């Protein structure tokens, strides 16, 4: 693996670590700001419900019950240039426990596709899934 790919991998790790802290702090405490983390055309998929557009996403999140996330696992990769060209884009995978309202904590996994826009990282799309049986 060449040096520049290695640098990109390092950068992805740094950005993912910072992103993870910011996103869940925003989700748990300052939901009215969460639209700032998304592209205008961003897409959120929450347990199979798709919401598109950053303002719709913010409204959707504002109406969810209160949450408190604890992160156990984080990983990130730069997305291949064959898929995104020179547009720096990351894929991030996060897992942990979430306490929703007064329920028992439940395990969740969430992935993000994040790209650079106006020199900031912004979410293109994310998918959230609670660990639950589908029947």
């Amino acid at each position, binding site marked *: 693996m060449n040096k520049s790919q290695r640098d990109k991998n390092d950068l992805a790790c740094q950005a993912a670590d910072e992103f993870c802290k910011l996103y869940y702090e925003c989700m748990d405490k300052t939901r009215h700001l969460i639209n700032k983390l998304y592209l205008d055309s961003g897409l959120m998929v929450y347990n*199979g419900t*798709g919401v598109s557009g950053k303002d719709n996403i913010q409204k959707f999140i504002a109406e969810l019950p209160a949450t408190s996330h604890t*992160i156990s696992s984080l*990983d990130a990769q730069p997305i291949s240039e064959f*898929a995104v060209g020179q547009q720096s884009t990351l894929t991030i995978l996060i897992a942990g426990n979430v306490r929703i309202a007064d329920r028992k904590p439940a395990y969740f996994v969430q992935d993000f596709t994040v790209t650079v826009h106006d020199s900031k990282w912004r979410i293109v799309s994310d998918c959230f899934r609670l660990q639950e049986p589908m029947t």
Partner: protein
Amino acid sequence: IGFDLEEKKVDLPESHSSFLCSEEGRDITLEFVKQYFGLYDGVDRSGLINAYHDTAVFSLTTAYNTPPTPQNTTRLNDYLSHNRNLKRVNGHNRREELIKKGKTEISEFLCTLPRTQHDPASFTLDLSIFNAKLMLIFSLTGVFKEPDVKGEPHRHFYRKFVLLLSDAGVAIVNDMMHVTNATQNQIKNCFVAVPLPVAAVPPKPPVAA
């Protein structure tokens, strides 16, 4: 007389087994999932080499969803030694080593993981990005069991794929995998239903909140 600050009771939106951002992308994605997990569940996974692009990358994370106790001894040891959890792995070199690179290294690595049997009826599938001439991104979750491992453990997995689309076919460029233990509730509900609910779900446009 009380005050009006009492929080109104809000509940989670109902879960759906699938979200598909594009109807056109549905068939490609479902066909890919069927072929990929057919090979993955086989005795020999080396055929998966053809699913990956020359420059593909793969990484694995794992974590206990509840702390292991003497009563619950299902361990994740087969996954832990390859765990690229950035919360725990700090060195640049170790982080770099834990990314499997290229179709040969990836398929050889996948052959070293325990043999699996996935339950397609447990799958959830979310297609979040689709560009017919270029690429698609989807996330898949579900339950598999490990028939060759003592106690036949059941696991919950989450997989995220970035696929290139071309006239030559489909090739994985990014692959991320997360594994944890299945919950009692999942174990009770898996390998009983008739597959495959995802195929029957019509694509839905995103909702406006």
